[in-house]
């Protein structure tokens, strides 16, 4: 997440026993209201952090399903842009914030359900059921 809610002093850092870590929001299926420029910027920042595809609807009416991997922010929406990869297209693309009318977090969140606790629970359940050679498989490439 890009919003820095707290800054640590050197003393606090050196004394840290356990890292607090970041909280990941459940964004799958979210369609943010983009009433203001700030709301648009915030939504695109979240789209940049999101580990799944989003669908952008441009003011031209064009719809783009894509994985947003980068953003450049500037003082104006015209000068700010996101970079994305669309499925079945090898090229990187870019679109200005000013062209974006709607964002939908349509793709599956690929990081969801992959916490350590999920694995421990999964392992214990499978072991209790008598399974051997327990493993998590990578996501299928579909």
């Amino acid at each position, binding site marked *: *997440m*890009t919003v*820095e*809610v*707290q*800054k*640590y*002093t*050197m003393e*606090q*850092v*050196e*004394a*840290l*026993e*356990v*890292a*607090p*870590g*970041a909280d*990941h929001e459940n964004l799958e299926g979210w369609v943010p209201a983009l009433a203001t420029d700030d709301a648009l910027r915030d939504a695109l920042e979240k789209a940049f*952090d999101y*580990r*799944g*595809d989003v669908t952008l609807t441009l003011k031209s009416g064009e719809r783009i399903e894509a*994985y947003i*991997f*980068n*953003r*450049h922010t500037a003082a104006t929406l015209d000068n700010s842009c996101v*970079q994305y*990869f*669309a*499925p*079945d297209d*090898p090229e990187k693309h870019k679109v200005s914030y000013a062209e974006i009318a709607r964002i939908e977090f349509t*793709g*599956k969140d*690929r*990081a*969801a359900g*992959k*916490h*350590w*606790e*999920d*694995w*421990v629970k999964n*392992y214990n359940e499978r072991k209790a059921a008598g399974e*051997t*050679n*327990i*493993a*998590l*498989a*990578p*996501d*299928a*490439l*579909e």
Partner: protein
Amino acid sequence: MAIPISQMWTVSTYVLKNRLAGRKRFSLTLMLEPLFRCSLACAGCGKVQYPPHILKRQLTPEECFAAVEECGAPMVAIPGGEPLLHPQITEIVNGLVARKKYVYLCTNALELKHRLPEFTPSKYLTFSVHLDGQREHHDFGVCRDGAYDIAIEGIKEAVRRGFRVTTNATFFDGVDPNNARAFFDEVMAMGVEGIILSPGYSYDKAPDQHHFMGRARVRRLFRAILSNRKPTWKFNMSPLFLEFLMGDRNYECVPWGMPTYNIFGWQKPCYLLQDGFVDSYKELLETTDWEKYGVPSGNPKCANCMVSCGYETPAVIDGFTTWKGFLAMARGNFNKYPDSQALKQLSEAAAPAEQTEQCCCCHEETKS
């Protein structure tokens, strides 16, 4: 230290040349991620959680060579994803070796044994095998029973064929220092050149955010593990970085020391944080707001990081550019770091915990 003299010479002269040229920022190791696909699905890994169309993408050998030339670093680490899944990995490795780059191909070794005939042993090529501990611990950590045994077969075959081999371990919260030391005994007995290790770090992109040590705990753990060293142990790392992990010295993060290049471009600011991408190495060095990162910045994302990608570079530079650092580095190669407090810590860790049971990975403690 288990690093060959020719490699040390290459790195030391590279560091000195850059210093004499007055360069403030230069890189020692390029982290080249040619793809994000992996054959494992380790809980906690933040490198592989992408939609399928991203996982199918990969850098071409030409893109890899261009990045390596542009960066100029004498060493190239190839993590991923699993690099052996790249259909042109042999071509990439051969091209880097031909450029006299010291290549560390980081692999989970599930495919290593049967892929070895495709590679040629060279002082420039090291297989750096991901092993996080002894069998039970590693298998649980990578979420796959049997992974350790397969990796060991690959290691032994690679050693037999004359390849340089290291192991590469990440230690997370809850690791028993006695197990870590026993693991060092095991891998050294297999004939590996040395051990590479690092503490885990709760970078934003990792799905798991709750099993990462803060700096105080990292230092205690590594002091227990790395004090009272056995003569058989060799580390493929700067001794000064190991002293940093033990809390004996302090360095500031040098994120540009090990920059990352992947299908998205040059990653800002470091291997673990993804705050954006730029199209060139020059742009990375010149446009990244470096003051926003590292412990002195107060950035909470950097608060618990003591990872080699940020802190080994300053240790290496210290060792090759100051007499004090050079002497400490030389001393570190022979020092066994005797420490009675660390021995006490080991015996306390070995004592059975009353009324509690730990799962095999030591992450979960339950009342019995």
